[in-house]
């Protein structure tokens, strides 16, 4: 059985959904945050990929594209000691409170 990201030839007859979702601001920000981290030499595209490919298979299949990017960026920044999981937990909780939804 190939790894979860290795999708070529997986048996499925699901039609291609050609509808484009409207990008949320956080998705644009996340795409560009990765670009900035690359420009600063802090996270290249291979590190992004390695992070995405390390996601738990269940999470990989149940999350959206940029949710996987978010998980990979976090994995890389925590591993490199740039940020800690705790401070991200705390700030993310504060942001969700600020937004007024349980997230």
């Amino acid at each position, binding site marked *: 059985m190939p790894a979860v*990201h*290795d*999708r*070529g*030839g*997986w*048996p*499925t007859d*699901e039609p*291609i*959904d*050609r*509808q*484009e*979702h*409207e*990008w*949320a*601001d*956080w998705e*644009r*920000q*996340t*795409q*560009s*945050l990765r*670009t*900035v*981290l*690359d*420009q*600063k030499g*802090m996270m290249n*595209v291979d590190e992004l*990929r390695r992070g*995405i490919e390390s996601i738990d298979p269940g999470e990989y299949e149940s*999350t959206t*594209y*940029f*949710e996987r990017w*978010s*998980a990979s*960026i*976090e994995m890389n*920044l925590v591993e490199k000691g*740039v*940020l800690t999981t705790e*401070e*991200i937990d705390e*700030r*993310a*909780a*504060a*942001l*969700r409170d*600020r*937004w*007024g*939804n349980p*997230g």
Partner: protein
Amino acid sequence: MSEGKDRGGFYDTGWQPAGDVHRDEDGRPHDHPGLQEDVVLGVRASRALAMHELLVEKGVIGGHDVDDAIELWSERVPSNGATLVAKAWVDPEFKARLLEHPKETVVESGFVPEHNADIIVLENTSTVQHMVVCTLCSCYPTALLGPPPDWYKSFSYRSRAVTEPRAVMSEFGLELEEDVEVRVVDSNSELRFLVLPRRPAGTEGWSEERLATLVTRDSMIGVSAPLSPDSVQN
């Protein structure tokens, strides 16, 4: 589809730079500058925004760096690739160079390949149709086509492009003759592909600019043909 307006692969969400979010006394963002406040903020979304805030506060990145990168991304649009295709259709020397030295030609044309990746341009003919996929994720010539569309990143496209490309093309409205050979190419982070579609019949004497209006993003991925000349207003 919500209210986002298709701008050749980009969707206008009314996005505003997030560098200076105005906040109420209780810290909630207000007006429209900054991030949408009417969406449910999921866990991964909130963690992405939290990382951005923390990186700026720590001085790891500048407060406007991300906005600048968003601006850069807005210059990556499918019309970039379309100008190359249209030029190749009218200028045989340019076409030969684009096929033989694609990366150099892309750079000379003013485009900056993402991640300095290599690029190969694949010419469709009456007997060969190329189709591009990234089975592992979403590698794509973003400098020439913009960010990949959702369907390109979908599990179903990544799976089925390999096993039944003709059926996939059929879903995009392209019915190939039986004797046309289909070649599916799999992208990776170091190598991206641009399909050079066939010039539509009935466009003799057209200018590059006019021809470029026929070159769709999907025709440069190879899942469909360019628009027909009578489908566009002249």
